Structures are given as structure tokens and as C-alpha cells.
């Protein structure tokens, strides 16, 4: 089972402006995290932030899709997850509708796939998974 996050947001700004903010390294540093992104499919880059327990503060990414000014997607690997983040924008009511998807969560780490099969996991499923399902989208 993979689980995804999906958000739809409206910004009262033209698509071109939103696109610039989504794909300009300096702008991304301001609203997302410091990075060395470049708008080129195949470009490998990193987001860097403060380390936390279980996470060295580095997200390794590669630009997977770039369709200006409509959609950008990159891989998102760090802290034990291997996922994909995509931003899709469309003009709407004089502004911009943005859909953000973060796809491919498989539990927390590969470890948990096997743990889920274990009887001991029942407790976590009971406590935690309903909470996760309420927030995520199942596939």
C-alpha cells in the first residue's frame, strides 16, 4: 500500500507568477527550503535544512517532469523515504489553482512493510493508521 498527500490551493495571482515561484531556486528557498534546483529534467539537486532525529537534513531530488507553466515534479528522497512531489497549476477565476501531490509513502521505511505483516503491528495499526488514513489518500 502506498499513501499520498494531496492539496488543492487557490492563489489570487497569475499562473506565470506562481510558476516562477515554483521553479526559481531563490524563491523556493524562501517558501520551501534552501536548494540548488534548476528547471531542467534530469537535474539532480538537494534541499538542505536542519537535521532532526532520523533525518540528516538533506533531501535528494531529481527533476522528473517539467512542463512550463503547468507542471513540475521531482523525486524526494531523505529521512528514509523515497517519494515524488509534484506541483500542477491551472488558471482559475483570474488566479491560479495549485495541486500539490506527495506520493509514494510506504509506511515509514522499508522495515515497516515487513513489520506490518507481524502480529505485533496490530497495536500500531489500531492507534496510528486510522489517524494517517484520515489525513492521506489511499491507493
Amino acid at each position, binding site marked *: 500500500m502506498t499513501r499520498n498527500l494531496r492539496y488543492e490551493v487557490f492563489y489570487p495571482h497569475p499562473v506565470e507568477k506562481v510558476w516562477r*515561484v515554483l521553479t526559481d531556486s531563490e524563491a523556493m528557498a524562501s517558501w520551501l527550503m534552501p536548494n540548488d534546483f534548476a528547471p531542467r529534467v534530469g537535474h539532480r539537486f538537494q534541499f538542505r535544512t536542519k537535521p532532526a*532525529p532520523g533525518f540528516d537534513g538533506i533531501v535528494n531530488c531529481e527533476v522528473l517532469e517539467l512542463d512550463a507553466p503547468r507542471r513540475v515534479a521531482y523525486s524526494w528522497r531523505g529521512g528514509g523515504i523515497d517519494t515524488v512531489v509534484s506541483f500542477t497549476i491551472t488558471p482559475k477565476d483570474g488566479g491560479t489553482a495549485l495541486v500539490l501531490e506527495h506520493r509514494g509513502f510506504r509506511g515509514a521505511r522499508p522495515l515497516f512493510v515487513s*513489520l506490518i505483516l*507481524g502480529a*505485533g503491528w496490530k497495536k500500531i495499526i489500531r492507534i496510528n493508521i486510522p489517524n494517517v488514513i484520515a489525513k492521506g489518500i489511499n491507493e
Partner: protein
Amino acid sequence: MPTLSADAHVYAAIADTTRRGILDLLAERPRSVNELVAAFDVTQPAISRHLGVLRSVGLVQVRTEGRQRIYEFDPEPLSEVVDWLSAYDRFWRKRLRALGEYLERT
């Protein structure tokens, strides 16, 4: 980036490949040290050390059965660790708000 409130020691405990392997086996069913030693290419003292680490963070419980000590998996300390999805949920909500604020001021 999301930060999780789980004890850092729990992360350290599960960062080790052998310890993850031990947890996988114990998640199937409780086992003795001898069974675990047989499953891995390491010495009994090494397995005992790993079990000590796992016990210290509460991922493994031990009980005595006759002359044997039986080790059991306890998933409770992982309940925070597993919750990456809700950590990222909080992260993206904040970042999308920051994006909107950035658009407003530029």
C-alpha cells in the same frame, strides 16, 4: 522539514541493519537468543548487545521460559516513527501558506 517527537534513541536503535533484522524476526513470533544467533552471521555476544539496545528503547521485551530467555517485539515506541505522513502533512500545510505569503509580498 518535519521533525518527529519520537525519542532519538529509537531511531538509532532501528538504524542498524542487524537490529532491524532481529525486529523483523521477532515480529513474526517471539524467539530465544539461540534462534536469533542461528539466523544471523554474528556471534551470540553481538546478538545480546543488539538485544540490549532494543530492550533499552522498549522495542523488545524479555521473559524467562524454563532455562530460556524469550524475546518479544513491542511496536509501541515506533508509533511516532511510523507517522511520516502526518509529519509531512503539517510540513506541506505550512509551506503552502508560506508560498501564498511569498506571492503576496513579491
